[in-house]
């Protein structure tokens, strides 16, 4: 098994953190992992992205050119990456911010009203954790309880309020995707 996952959005939307969380979670789930951030001029205002590869074998390329999972947090990232998703891959996007304009099929689209869900969870900005929760629903190799313990490990206990919102967003994102995919 090897998956390439791309997470893309504006700097400040928690793109790199989401990638890091995914990488740490995959690691404790027993996989090999690479995490490669965009560190170029994109960090300063433009789109920013993180490529994560998880594999049961040693990893060659840390570059993800045809993601099996794409998490899209803003419109420019849709424009840039949506068409790269592999045919059987999932494009999970915040349907509150992203208007899919292209007629091409970006893998299997999973529209998630992440801003609305995050607002209900307590902070409309935490759309990254909502999409991450939805991702966990379509990537059963990464158990949600591992993701929860990685979150607890990555976020300092000093920010317990934030941690609780993050955990709630992950749960709600997971549940929304579950509803969406249930027959």
């Amino acid at each position, binding site marked *: 098994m090897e998956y390439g996952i791309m997470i893309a959005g504006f700097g400040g939307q928690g793109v790199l953190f989401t990638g890091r969380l995914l990488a740490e979670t995959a690691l404790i789930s027993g996989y*090999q992992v690479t*995490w490669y*951030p965009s560190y*170029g001029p994109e960090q300063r205002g433009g789109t920013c992205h993180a490529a994560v590869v998880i594999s049961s074998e040693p990893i060659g390329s*840390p*570059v993800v*050119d045809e993601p099996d999972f794409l998490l899209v947090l803003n419109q420019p990232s849709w424009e840039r990456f949506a068409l790269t998703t592999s045919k059987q891959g999932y494009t999970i996007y915040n349907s509150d911010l992203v208007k899919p304009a292209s007629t091409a099929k970006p893998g299997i689209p999973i529209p998630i009203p992440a801003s609305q869900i995050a607002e209900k969870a307590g902070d409309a900005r935490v759309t990254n954790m909502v999409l991450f929760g939805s991702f966990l629903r379509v990537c059963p190799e990464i158990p949600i309880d591992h993701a929860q313990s990685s979150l607890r490990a990555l976020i300092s206990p000093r920010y317990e309020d934030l941690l609780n919102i993050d955990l709630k967003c992950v749960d709600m994102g997971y549940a929304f995707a579950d509803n969406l995919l249930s027959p």
Partner: protein
Amino acid sequence: MAQSIGEQSMGLMKGNEAIAEAAIRAGCRAYFGYPITPQNEIPEYMAKHLPKVGGVFLQAESELAAINMVYGAGGAGVHVMTSSSSPGISLKQEGLSYIACAEVPCVVVNMMRSGPGLGGILPAQGDYFQATKGGGHGDYHLLVLAPSTIQEAVDLTYEAFDLARRYRNPVMILGDGLLGQMMESVTLPQPKAPLPKPPWATTGCGDGEPRVINSLYIQGDVMEERTKRIFAKYAKMKQNEIRFENYKTDGAKIILAAYGSTARIAKTAVDKARTRGIKVGLFRPISLYPFPYDELSEVATEAKAVLTVEMSMGQMVEDVRLAVEGRCPVRFYGRSGGIVPTPQEILQQIQAIWSHIA
């Protein structure tokens, strides 16, 4: 994975930080540097952690000053390191020439970015010539090691200080922005105590004979002797320090040649091509100086074509051609400017060659 005593599984680490930690564990006790992207995590890590083991961190006023501080501390017998990225490494070349001639051990990390000029901060491999052919003025080489994973970067950095001391020559760890910025899980080696002060080091001679660290030999015959002495060490390196990896090269009709980050991308392309029935393998030089000419020559003997892949306009390909000696065509595929080739792009190159030879 079984761990020996003192090894430490660290989970995910950034390449730059892993290199810095490996250096400290190898006994590095002095670091001099100057900020430049994409290697800033190295000085930042050193600033935080080197003083905890009694080491010295100093941010120099320039790359010139930094490499000359390295020369001073290395001449005084301390395990010393600097790091930079391409434009900064250019500025260090004068110092490296002096250091090589004066036979001062040190470790230099170059996390390459795109060039020429100020270029960009994205990954590139355009400093291959500079790293392997001397770089500064005069007849000398660095011992150049090119890791392709963070674990390998840790292992080579850990060894680099011993190699520098053994050969009394600068050792360069040649990586790029991708290796420096990415994260991967690593196991760190056991911390080593620094080697004792060598007898040639300028630490104050007490009642003994004064020591001189020098690269000035004004008489031609004396300078020639000095140069021969340095090149005798390079001959020893060629015997003992050639490193490389063969990946699926048995029976391969196409041999990819790539190093560092590009090699791991090429590996994925090899795997993809193999599932399509293409007989392709990868030869990965790990020591770039000394270059594994004979070893590459051997795997190329049965091949119909060699494809060199680099993040440059074609530099290592010249050494590949020297190794292959015209026995089969040597093709080149490169990206530059900071663009990282994808496995898919490399696969297309492999398929194009395969369609001619199969």
